[in-house]
């Protein structure tokens, strides 16, 4: 990530301009030639600094009102292999391993599930549970009851 990359981040973190030549507009905003903007973004996408490019839907606006954080206490020796399998199911929008904080928090695998109904979200949890099988010692589903704050992640500029 160099200075030019950071200018591209600043110019696009709120989105691409909805114009026929959006990367040319980014070029204008950053002072870089259009070909260089596109080449840099191709590289950043390949490196994973850009997860993906496209539409970022609002879960609630699409009717997904039941957003559950399903958390699992999975054996350390098996969590990475199982995490990869769970992610590939296509049932969760995020799948991460995070540290435990015993005794307050004993869960190390986090999956986000979404449903238009509570049952739909819990159905996804059961499908995940079936794959995790006996590697799970305990689990819970934490539904969000209120959005207290939601701003975009601002990383630069």
């Amino acid at each position, binding site marked *: 990530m160099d200075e030019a990359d950071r200018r591209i981040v600043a110019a696009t973190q709120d989105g691409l301009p909805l114009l026929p030549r959006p990367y040319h507009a980014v070029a204008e905003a950053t002072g870089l030639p259009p070909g260089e903007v596109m080449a840099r973004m191709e590289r950043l996408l390949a490196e994973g600094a850009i997860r993906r490019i496209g539409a*970022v839907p609002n879960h609630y606006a699409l009717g997904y009102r039941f957003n559950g954080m399903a958390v699992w206490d999975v054996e350390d020796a098996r969590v990475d292999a199982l995490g990869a399998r769970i992610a590939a199911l296509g049932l969760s929008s995020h*799948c991460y391993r995070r540290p435990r904080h015993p005794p307050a928090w004993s869960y190390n695998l986090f999956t986000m599930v979404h449903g238009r109904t509570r049952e739909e979200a819990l159905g996804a949890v059961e499908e995940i549970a079936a794959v995790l099988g006996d590697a799970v010692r305990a689990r819970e589903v934490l539904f969000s009851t209120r959005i207290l704050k939601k701003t975009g992640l601002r990383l630069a500029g």
Partner: protein
Amino acid sequence: MDELDRRIVNALQGGFPICERPFAVAAEGLGIEEATLIARLAALREAGVLSRFGPLWKAEGLGGAVTLAAMAVPPDRFEAVTALVNAHPEVAHNYERTHRLNMWFVLATETPQGIDAAIQAIEAETGIPVLNMPREAEYHVGLRLEA
């Protein structure tokens, strides 16, 4: 939202091309005109169906840091603590959840050190321990929300 809006949202949650006329390329795949696609995306964004259209940047790749943090807030102090936590610009998202740990927020900072500083400030202001749960591994997901 009509049938075309749904097709657009379902088709374009990733893979938007990097080229001179990307909307024209994407529109062709959907069998519509470039101008139609641009107008539909603008309307979907305006209506809040899309929170954004463009690249989804990963904070760590940019030298910044992100973490998930949780607190067990006494119910009678919930509103006051919410105000204290939300006042920090590093707090990007904050959710109330059904658990003894009832407040969950995402911290995003320009440097890794910024995370510790924000957590210490929140603990000092609220007197409540903050559990820091940074990602240790990320498993690649294929989910696309169906419109």
